[in-house]
């Protein structure tokens, strides 16, 4: 117990004094996971909307599959991306492995089911009157879609934040495809994994506190948005 207390105090000192290493790891984490979230949202919110607005056989099965993939293991995504972008893999020519871009790709893929699935359920939550009113006013299919998407814009922000939360807190995929290179692909979670194994508990604790704080901020924003 004493060890935890002492580590906590040292960790707070590292944060308050603005330790450059802690700062740069934090910044890098936010940039990488932020990019992954934006990338994933740009592709999979439209994809989720497309699934919602179209009718096709097997739609229900597809939605179920997407929801199942919410909890796809991070290491599995890491493995798939590793095989794909390794030099001997199909996308090896891009030279992406062990770069921040690889981590962005893996995290974007990891959260894609969350973004797609939650987009679909956000749209499902729109009151049917809105669609009916738009229809009665003579709106085209595209206009109806736009109206409904506008209606769920806050819910979509929540979707994006949920994706970001999963991206920034994952470690398995990031460490496999990023390689945890100091000053390049080392993020909050991968640094915690290494530093804990090396016995630098205080440093890990500082990063952990920052990670929790980020998660807290995200959930506060989500809470606010949901009340709008």
């Amino acid at each position: 117990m004493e060890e935890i207390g002492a580590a906590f105090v040292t960790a707070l000192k590292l944060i308050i004094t603005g330790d450059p290493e802690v700062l740069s790891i934090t910044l890098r984490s936010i940039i990488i996971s932020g990019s992954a979230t934006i990338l994933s949202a740009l592709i999979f919110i439209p994809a989720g909307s497309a699934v919602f607005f179209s009718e096709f056989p097997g739609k229900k099965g597809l939605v179920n599959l997407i929801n199942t993939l919410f909890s796809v293991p991070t290491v599995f995504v890491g493995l798939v991306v590793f095989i794909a972008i390794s030099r001997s893999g199909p996308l090896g020519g891009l030279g992406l492995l062990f770069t921040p871009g690889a981590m962005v790709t893996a995290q974007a893929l990891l959260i894609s089911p969350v973004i797609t699935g939650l987009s679909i359920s956000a749209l499902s939550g729109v009151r049917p009157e809105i669609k009916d009113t738009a229809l009665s006013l003579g709106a085209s299919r595209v206009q109806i879609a736009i109206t409904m998407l506008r209606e769920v814009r806050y819910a979509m922000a929540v979707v994006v934040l949920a994706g970001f939360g999963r991206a920034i807190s994952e470690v398995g995929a990031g460490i496999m495809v990023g390689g945890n290179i100091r000053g390049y692909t080392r993020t909050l979670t991968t640094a915690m994994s290494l530093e804990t194994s090396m016995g630098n508990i205080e440093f890990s604790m500082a990063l952990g506190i920052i990670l929790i704080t980020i998660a807290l901020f995200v959930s506060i924003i989500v809470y606010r948005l949901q009340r709008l």
Partner: protein
Amino acid sequence: MKKITLPLSILFLTLLLVAVSMPACSAGAPEDTGKSITPSAASDAGRILAKRDRVKVATTTSLYDTGLWGFLEPMFEKKYNVELDVLYAGTGKAIEYGTRGDVDVLTIHDKAREEKLVADGIGVKRVPFASNHFIITGPPSDPAGIKGMSPEAAFKTLMEKGKTSPQQVQFISRGDNSGTHSKEKAIWKAAGYEYEDVTKSGPWYVEAGSGMGPTLVMAKEKSAYTVADIGTFLAYKGKLGLASLVDRGAILLNVYSVIPINPDKVPGTNLKMAENMVDFLTSPEIQTLIGKYGADEYGEQLFTPSAGAEPVE
């Protein structure tokens, strides 16, 4: 078709943006693994100003956990004006990275597998650049009573005592196909055991599947025995409270080599920089620094420079 091209172009645009912005954002303040020496300011200025080539080295965990790579990295980057990415992995994983073409050069420690790599044409050559020795470490109370034995006799004793009283005597194996793991297997063989039988011999034998540092920490937590390279052991000693119990025996020699990956066999790897790495590690200046590394801090030499020749016990 249109539906597909739009998301795809967005994907590529974003990736491009990321690729462009990353070198800038990686130019943060110097980071330190805790024990290594802070990289020079010049190296960091270089990161901001110039977009330099990148070269990737996969290294055995012991050269990383001791902080040696953190110490050498800025010197190499400055000398050859290049960004050096150091990936720490067990020797087995490092060889896999090299074979797949994901790194340009390896610094590892498993002579048999290194020679096979060169024979297969994947490695250009094998150049030893430093050595030290392995030890068998365990709790200072030494419940199995192996202190001062030969490595082979110590392993026999551990097996016998471990089987009969697994509560008192446990052994933690790296279990990760690393160079240290290979050495452990070699000692079992020399002691007259089949490794297959050792792994099935009971709960006293624990496979960690982790790097050297984490395995030592686990040995401490479980008051167990393990095989470690002396470098990592000394670097972690302060945190561990484990004792070095067996440190003599020809079989305990530990040789670190540098191996450039052959772009003819594995396309896309950077042979020029890999050759620079060989020159760098075997240069008199760096050899001296390797010999001195950690000596003040840990009170003992961590590595013996070997200047490209095969070290002997």
